[in-house]
Structures are given as C-alpha cells and as structure tokens.
C-alpha cells in the first residue's frame, strides 16, 4: 500500500549526514518540528522514550522511530535516507541507512498501529528498500514511497 497519506513530498530528506543514532533522531525531530509546527524538544522526547524500550531498527538497515504526541493533529511521516549508514542498535546489528519517522496524534489508537505496520511491511520488502537506496533525489524517493505496490 502506498504511503501517500502519511508522507508529504517535502517530508523527504534524500541524503542526511549524521554521525550516530542520537544525531539522526535530533535532525529528524528538527525537520519534523519545522513541518508540523510542534516543539522539537517534545518530538525528540517521545522518540527517545520509545528507543529506550528497544531500538526501532527493524533489521536490514531500516529504522522506524515513532511515537505519539498530544498536540499533533494528524499522522505525520518523514523519510530520510542517510548519507552514511549508522549504528542504530538494531536487533540484527546491521547499520541503518533508511529511516522513517512516524508521529501520531494521541487519539489515533488503532490507526497509529496500522500505519506503523504498513510502513514496516513496505520498507521490509526487499525491492522497495533497494529502490530507495538507489534513488538519488527527493522526488525519486517520494515516487518509490507512494508507488502502488504490486499485489496489494
């Protein structure tokens, strides 16, 4: 299922330069704050709270940091392809270079979970991940993210 309802064209960072997990979360929170008008600090807090429970690195170089924010009006997605893969404490130990940030309003409930599952399952398909890694600019990445997936 395409993610066009979750991610806007301007919410794609094609070559984010970061040195580690902490900095990656910081940069993503900053960009998300810019786009949503929320406080960067609040966003970073919920993301870090979730990471404390266990890394959101789902394996194969992909991470999906996520959290719920009371002040958010609708679900918000932000995608970043990292310039250089970083250690994200992922379960399989592989460095991460594809990051999808998903924020949901406090009231989202089951929709939040469904959206997360959708993002995880889309990024986990090998073809999608390869295409995202091969894409050079934001437009190409956005096209891959919103591309209708065969079979669904």
């Amino acid at each position, binding site marked *: 299922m395409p993610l066009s309802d979750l991610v806007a064209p301007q919410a794609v960072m094609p070559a984010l330069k970061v040195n580690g997990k902490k900095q990656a979360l910081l940069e993503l929170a900053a960009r998300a704050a810019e786009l949503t008008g929320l406080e960067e600090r609040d966003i970073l807090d919920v993301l870090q709270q979730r990471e404390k429970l266990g890394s*959101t690195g789902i394996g194969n170089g992909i991470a999906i940091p996520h959290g719920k924010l009371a002040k958010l009006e609708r679900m918000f997605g932000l995608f970043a392809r990292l310039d250089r893969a970083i250690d994200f404490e992922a*379960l399989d130990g592989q460095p991460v270079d594809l990051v999808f940030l998903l924020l949901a309003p406090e009231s989202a409930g089951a929709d939040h979970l469904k959206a*997360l599952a*959708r993002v995880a399952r889309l990024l*986990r398909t090998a073809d999608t991940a390869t295409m995202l890694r091969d894409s050079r600019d934001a437009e190409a990445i956005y096209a891959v993210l919103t591309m209708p997936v065969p079979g669904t």
Partner: protein
Amino acid sequence: MDQIANVSLAVLLGSAMVLAGILSSLMAMRFGAPLLLVFLGFGMLAGEAGPGGVPFDNVEVAYLVGSVALGLILFDGGLRTRLSTFRTVLAPSMSLATAGVMLTAAFTAPVAHFALGLGWIESLLIGSVIASTDAAAVFFLLHAHGLRLRPRVAATLEIESGTNDPIAIFLTLLLVEIILLGGKSWPDIALAFVAKAAGGAVIGWGGGRAISFVLNRVSLAQGLHAPFVSAAALVVFGLAEFIGGSGFLAVYLAGLVVGNRPTRAHNTVVTFLDAATWIAQIVMFLILGLLAWPSRLIDHAVPALAVALTLMVVARPAAVFLCLWPFRFSTREKLFMSWVGLRGAVGIFLASIPLLVELPNGQVYFDIGFVVVLVSLLVQGWTIAPAARRLHISLPRSDPPPRRVELDLPGQLEQELVGYAVGPSSPYLRRHLVPSWAKLMLVVRDEEVLTAGEAQAIREGDHVYLLAPPEKAHALDRFFVDMPAPASPDPQLLGDFFVPGEATLGALAEIYGLSVSPEDLGMSLADQFVRRLGRPARQGDVLPLGTIALLAHRVTEGRVVSVGLRLAEPDPLPATIERWKAALRRAWRRSTAVLRRR
C-alpha cells in the same frame, strides 16, 4: 619378600579394577546408564561374592576413602557453582536441602519401622541414610543427552543435590550417636545441630577465603596450584570435623568461596579437580561395591524394596511439594523434581557408618541403603528423560556450545586468553561481531601464529584468541556457535518491531495505547509469556495483547529474550478480489446505464 609380592599384587588388582571401571564408563555413556551404577556393579563383581573374589570387609578403610572422596566431590561441586545462578534459586534449593531432607527421612521412617520391625530412632536413621540426593548422579543425568530443563528447575535440583549431603550426613551421625549413647534431650540435639552447622559454615567460609588469598599471593610452581587447592580443601574438611563442625558443609562452602573469587590458575584447578572427582567417585564406588555382599542383600530385599518404593513415590514427592509450596513452580515441574531424587554415593557411604561403629543390626542399614540406592539409580536414572518428556518440561535442544580454550595470563587476574575455532557459519565470521570487552589478540592460521594486525580479515578455519575477563568468557561462546544463518525473516512471523523480553507491559501499553490491567503494568513481557503459556516459551509462540500480538522472536532456555510486536493484522489477501468485484460492479452499472439510455 612375600609382603612385596602382596603389595605388587594389590597394586595390580586395584589399578586394573580402576582401569576397568574407567573403560566401562564408555559403555555407560552409550547406554545412558548412570556411571555410578556401573562402578558399583563392577565393585560387586570384583568382591567376595562375585567372580572377582576379592575379600574386603574393612569398613574403616571404606569410610576413610569415602570421606576423602566426598570431601573432594563436594568441594568441586561448590567450585563449579556460580553464585549468580545460586542466588536466584537459593530459597527453593535451600528449602529442599534442609527441610526437604528431614521431611524425606521422616516420611520414610514409618515404612522402615513396620517392614523391618526396628525402633523409631533406628527407622529414622534408615530414612536419614537415604535422604539426600546425589550430586554426581543428578548432574550427570540432567546433562545427559536430550534433556534440557528450565534453568530454574535445573539449577534448583543441582544446588539441592550439592548442598543436601551435609544435612543428611549430619542427621545420620546424630542419630547414630543417639543410638550409641542413649537418649539426649531435644534441646541438646537442636543445639548440637546448630553448633555443627555454624562450625562448618565458619570454617568453610574462612577456609575458602584463605585458600584464594594464598593462591593469589604465594607464587607456587605452575603444577602445584591444583594440588595445593585440593589438599587445602581436605584440610578445611578435617579441621571442621576436628573442632566439631560439619566438615562436609565446610568443604562445600570453601569450594563455593574459591570458585566465585578471582583466583590464579582457576582453569587448571578446575581441570585437576575434575579428574580428582572422577577418581574419587570410581574408587569410592568400587570400594562400596566391594563392601556389599549380594547374596545377603537378597535377605533384606523385600523390606528394602518397600523402603525404596515409599521413598520414590511418597516421601520424596511429599517433601518436594511441601518445601516448594511457597515458590513458583508448576505442578508438573514439582512432579519431575520429585522424580529426580536420585540417591547415590552418599547414601551407601552413610549406610556404612552403622557398620563402622558396630551398631546392633549394622548390616541391615547397609543392605537397605545399598538396595535403595541401586533401585533409585536404576529406576529413576533410566526414566528421567522419558519423565521429562511426558511432563512436557524438557526444552527443545539448542546448539551445542563451541569448544573454548582458556589460558591464564600470569601476573594479573582481570583478563585471560580465550580461544575458539572459527566455524563457517559462526556469527563472528558472518557479522564480525565481538563484544567491546573482548579484544582479538592472535590468529592461528594454517599452523602459523599471526597477530591480529597481520591476520587481517578472519577466515573460516582460523583459530582466534581473544583477551577477555574470565567471568565473561562463557558469554563469548554464542559468537562462535556454528549455526546456520537465520532464514530470511518472514515479516508475518517476526512482527513489525522488536522489544527486549524484559520490557514491561506498562511501557508498551503507554507507547501503543493498549489496555492492560493495572496490576500487570510492571510485569515483563517474558514473564507474561511464561504466565499465559504455562510452559517454557518456544520461538514463534503468539500472545494476543489487546489489538496487537506479541511473538516470541528469540527464546533462550524457555525464556523470551526478544519479542516481536505485530501491530496490525496483515491486510486480508482477497483485497485484489474485492477490487475486481468493485470494477465488475462499476462496469455492470455503466453498461446497464448505457442500455437504459437507449
């Protein structure tokens, strides 16, 4: 000259017997029979009544050999017990090792009283003689192939068997004393009990500290560390007995102290004691077998079998259920733990004490004890694996641990060299992962020794040596387990995200907005699996939790280490069909509309 010839003959016969005993262990391994049984049988065959015809009825020698052997075995048992494992099961195993032993003895006594017509004190003596479980037999059978238990169950059983001997020995000696010297008042008995235990504990703890202190401060010749420790252990044993404490308790505690402090030459000591306990067991069993008189055993066979049966089916289970009542074990686990009440060397050894001190009917105690141990080893020993399977408490086997070479580095205690062969599909080779506290030092490749720098990339078939803290060395094992790479992850099976098994339900509920009852908020996911499954978890187990599902993603020894979260049910497959149907309906409507317009 006759004397010399006699001695030579004794050496020849004795060593030949030990040799045959050792070789017969091959047979035991093949058939999974308890080795002790084989040694015992061998001793009986060699004895007066068997074809060997060796006349031996020196109870004093048997007692001396037995004491030394038991001292070493108990010390070794303590040395190998990691306090970290010990602590988590301290309460249940101590309850079994103390109250359990006394209850077992008490529950067995009535049968002895009625079947043998002995007095109550004498019957209680029979109960005490066979009240303790045998560490060697329990260790051997729990580790025999095809049997892996929940760590809590296995650790409780092992520690129980390692620590209950002092109590049984103590009870036996006390009862013998009462029979010999006439009645004592109960307060006196209780006082003697406390004094003995306290004496043993103080000497044992102090002795253990002293042994590790000397070991680390005095520079002995390389080969002398292990003999020093063994001799010191026996000194601790003797000293405690001499001042009236329990030597067996002391020597076990000393082993525990030495084994859990950083000491020099730990590995050589363990290896040496391993050999020493083998020899001790073989010799002890041979001698105890020699002491037995099979034809006489038959005279007491019926009451002995009655005692054995009561012990296995009534006394031990009753004691286990009573002692473990306050702790969290399932009924099936308690049944199994009742069945692992293997008797062994200590039982026969204790049964020889009445002979030694020439109690009236001394022979009866020995014969009964002997038969009970025999029956227990035969019946329970052989049925443990099926019992575990029938009770569904045996876990699926995990990969065998890789062989690890440990080398002491003289001059310090913090680090040692740990060596492994690099298998083709070890995680180390596949992912080049090592923990931060381990440092690659040497690589042996094609019989050439290279430094880590010279060797560059590690290849299959290399032997690597890493510098690591000794207490963490075993944690390196999993990096060198030769296991196939995990199959490509199936998202449906794995879940969308992963959290550690120790994460609490509360944390999960907060982030994902799940409804969890308030008393469960602090519970870990791993515990939740245990509680809701009612059995050890297996990989792939699924627990629904509100709108999401928890999947046992990685499981170590029945406990979920990593949990997959399946956040939403997979999209229903027939989505395409629905779309086709919708398209058909649209086409139908359009065509009918066209038709109508006409």
